C-alpha cells in the first residue's frame, strides 16, 4: 500500500506538484493521468525515492521513502519515463545486474531472470546488445527490470509512449497480466489505455490532484446528462406524449420517423436510470421499444473537464460535478469527436487515434455509438478550443 501525504515539490520558484495526497490500495491497477507537464513523473519519482519532496511524505507499506529508503524501495519496481538501460549490456546481463542489485538470492537469480524474460517476451533477444534493440523491446526490458525481485508494487511511467499500435497492445496485455497479483500504477496521457486496464484513476493537472476514484465513480459524479437514443414502433405524437409524461426528463427531441418507427433523443440527469421507466411507459400503451442506447461520457471527456483551466481550481472537482456547468455542452461535442475517429477506422500511428478508443475493453464505460459524423463542424470547433490538450484529443 502506498500513502502519499501532502506532497509538494518545488523547483526553485516553480511548483511542480502541490499538496497531493492519495492512497493506493494493494492489488489494483491505478491509472495516473494528466496532461504533459502536470507533474506525473515528478510524483512518480518522489514515490520511488528518486526525488525528495519539498514537503510531505510517502509511505510504502508503512515505511517512509525518505527515512527508511531501503525497506520502502524493496517493495517497488520502477520504470521511469526513459527506460534506464545500459546500451552496452545484453538484456540478460542487465537483468542479472538488477536482480543482484535488488538483493535477489544468488541461487534464485537465474530462475528469476529467466521467468521475467519469458513473461515480457524478451527471451529471444537475451544475447543481443540493448543498444541494438528496437524501441518496443527496450521498453520491455525496462518493464522486465521493474518486475525483477517480484515487488508488490510496480510503477510504470508512460510505458507505451512512443510505441507503435501493435507494441502498445502487447505492452497493455503485459500490464494486465502484471496487475493480476500486484499493485500497478501506470501513468499515461493515452486515455483509452487507462480506461481499458485501470480500475482506479488519479488525475492531476497543473501539479494538483483533481480526481482520485474508480473509473465508474468519476464518470458518474462528473457526468452532466445522459443521452438516451430510442427507437419505438409508434408515431411521433405518441412518443412525444409518453416521454413528456416521464419524470426526470430534461429535454427530448424527435430525431426521425421511418414508417412505423420513430427515433427520439432524451436527456436526463446522470443520477437517474430511466431505462426501465421508458420501457414500461411505452409498453403501457402497447408500443414496442425497438432499440435503446445510452451515451455515456468517455474518460477523455471527463479528463478534459478535470484538467481544463476552468476546473482545476477545485481539488475535489470529482465530487462536485455540478460546478462545471459551462463544460456541459463541450462534453457532447468531445464525445462526437471520438466517434468520428472511430468511424474513420484508420489506425494510424497517432496518439489521437488511440484516444479514439478504437477498442473498448472490459474496463470501459460501455459507450454506444449512436450519432456521429453529423457534427463534424462542432467537433473541429472543439478542437480549436482544446488549448493545451490539442495533440491529445485528435487535433487534426
Amino acid at each position, binding site marked *: 500500500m502506498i500513502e502519499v501525504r501532502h506532497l509538494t515539490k518545488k523547483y526553485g520558484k516553480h511548483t511542480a506538484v502541490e499538496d497531493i495526497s492519495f492512497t493506493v490500495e494493494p492489488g489494483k491497477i491505478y491509472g495516473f493521468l494528466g496532461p504533459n507537464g502536470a507533474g506525473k513523473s515528478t510524483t512518480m519519482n518522489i514515490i520511488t525515492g528518486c526525488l525528495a519532496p519539498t514537503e510531505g511524505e510517502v509511505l510504502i507499506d508503512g515505511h517512509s521513502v525518505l527515512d527508511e529508503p531501503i525497506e520502502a524501495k524493496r517493495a517497488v519496481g520502477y520504470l521511469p519515463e526513459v527506460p534506464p538501460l545500459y546500451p552496452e*549490456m545484453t538484456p540478460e546481463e542487465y537483468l542479472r545486474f538488477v536482480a543482484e542489485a535488488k538483493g535477489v538470492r544468488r541461487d534464485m537469480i537465474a530462475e528469476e531472470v529467466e521467468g521475467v524474460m519469458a513473461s515480457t517476451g524478451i527471451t529471444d533477444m537475451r544475447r543481443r546488445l540493448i543498444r541494438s534493440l528496437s524501441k518496443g523491446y527496450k521498453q520491455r526490458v525496462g518493464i522486465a527490470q521493474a518486475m525483477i525481485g517480484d515487488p508488490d508494487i510496480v510503477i510504470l511511467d508512460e510505458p507505451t509512449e512512443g510505441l507503435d499500435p501493435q507494441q502498445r497492445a502487447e505492452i497493455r496485455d503485459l500490464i494486465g497480466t502484471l496487475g493480476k497479483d500486484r499493485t500497478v500504477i501506470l501513468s499515461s496521457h493515452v486515455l483509452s489505455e487507462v480506461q481499458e486496464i485501470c480500475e482506479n484513476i488519479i488525475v492531476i493537472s497543473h501539479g494538483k490532484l483533481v480526481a482520485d476514484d474508480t473509473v465508474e465513480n468519476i464518470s458518474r459524479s462528473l457526468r452532466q446528462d445522459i443521452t438516451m437514443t430510442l427507437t419505438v414502433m409508434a408515431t411521433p405524437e405518441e412518443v412525444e406524449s409518453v416521454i413528456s409524461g416521464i419524470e426526470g426528463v430534461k429535454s427530448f427531441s424527435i430525431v426521425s420517423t421511418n414508417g412505423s418507427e420513430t427515433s427520439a433523443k432524451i436527456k436526463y440527469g446522470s443520477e437517474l436510470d430511466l431505462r426501465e421507466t421508458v420501457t414500461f411507459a411505452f409498453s403501457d400503451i402497447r408500443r414496442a421499444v425497438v432499440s435503446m442506447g445510452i451515451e455515456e461520457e468517455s474518460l477523455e471527456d471527463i479528463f478534459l473537464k478535470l484538467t481544463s483551466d476552468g476546473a482545476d481550481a477545485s481539488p475535489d472537482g470529482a465530487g462536485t460535478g455540478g460546478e462545471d456547468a459551462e463544460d456541459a455542452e463541450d462534453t457532447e461535442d468531445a464525445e462526437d469527436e471520438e466517434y468520428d475517429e472511430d468511424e474513420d477506422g484508420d489506425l494510424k500511428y497517432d496518439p489521437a487515434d488511440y484516444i479514439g478508443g478504437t477498442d473498448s475493453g472490459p474496463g470501459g464505460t460501455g459507450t454506444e455509438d449512436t450519432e456521429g459524423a453529423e457534427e463534424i463542424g462542432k467537433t473541429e470547433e472543439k478542437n480549436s478550443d482544446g488549448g493545451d490538450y490539442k495533440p491529445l484529443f485528435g487535433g487534426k
Partner: protein
Amino acid sequence: MLAVYKREIKSYLTGITGYVMMAVILAFVGFFVTFSNVYGGSPKFNYSLITSVSFFVFLIIIPFITMRSFAEERRSKTEQLLLSLPITTHRIVLAKYFAMLTLIAIPTLIIGLYPLILSLSSGAEGVINFAVSYNSLFMLFLLLAVMTAIGMFASSLVENQIVAALIAAGAFFLMFFMSMISSMFPSDPIVSLIALVVCAAALGAVVYGMTRSSTAACVVTGGLSLILFVMYFVDTAMFWGLFPSLLSSVALFDVYMNGASLLGVFDIGEIIYYLTFAAVFVFMTVESVERRRYN
C-alpha cells in the same frame, strides 16, 4: 553494492576505453623506466615514477577514467535506476569508486613487476632497492586514489562528461602548480585575510550550486567571513603567511614528489593525508548525488 561494482568493472572492460587507458599509463611509465633505469642505468626506480614529466599522463588519464562515473548515468537517465534501487547512495558511490580504483590498480600491479625485472641485472650505479621502490609505487597508488575521488566528485556535479573531465583536469593542474602559486602570495596578514574571504565567497557559490538556496550560500559566506574578521582582529599574527601555507597544504603532488617517496622512507603521515583527502571527496560525491534528489 557488489552488483554495481561488477557492472562498473564490466563496462570499463567490455569496451576499448579501459584497455586504452591502461595501455597509455603502462606505455608512459614504461618509457620513463626504460629511459632512466635501463638506458640510464640508474637503480632508483622511485625517481622514474616521481619524474614530474611522467606525471602529466596521470593528470590527463585520471579525468578520462572518472568523467563517466556519474555524468554519464545522469545523461542517459540510468541514474534513476540506481536511485530507485534498494541500495544506499554511499554504497553506490563506493562501488563506483572501488571499480575505478580496480581499473587503476591493474596497471599499477603491472608496474610493480618492473623492479623485479630491473633487479635481474644490476645497473651501472648499483642494485635496485625493493623497499624504496614499492613504497613509492604504493604512494603513487594512493595519490591516484585521491585524484580519482576528485575526478568522481567533478563527474557528480555535471551532466556532460567532457565538462567533468575538464573540471578534474583543471583542478589537477592547479594543484600541480600549487607550490608555485602559493609562493606568489605575500605573507602579509591582510593578504591572507582577503584571500580567505574570497575563498569563503567561492565556497558560498559552490553551496548555492548544490542547494540552489541563496540563504544557505549567504549564511556560509557571511558566517565564515565574520569568523575570519573576528579572528583577524583577535590574533593578527596568526594570519601571517596563513594563506600561502594553506595553499601548500593542498599541493597534493608536492607531497608525493618531495616527500617520503623521494627519500625512500615510509611516512604514515603522508598516507593519512592522502586517505583523508580521498575520503573527503568520496563523501562530497555522496552528498552531491544525494543533493540531486532535492533539486
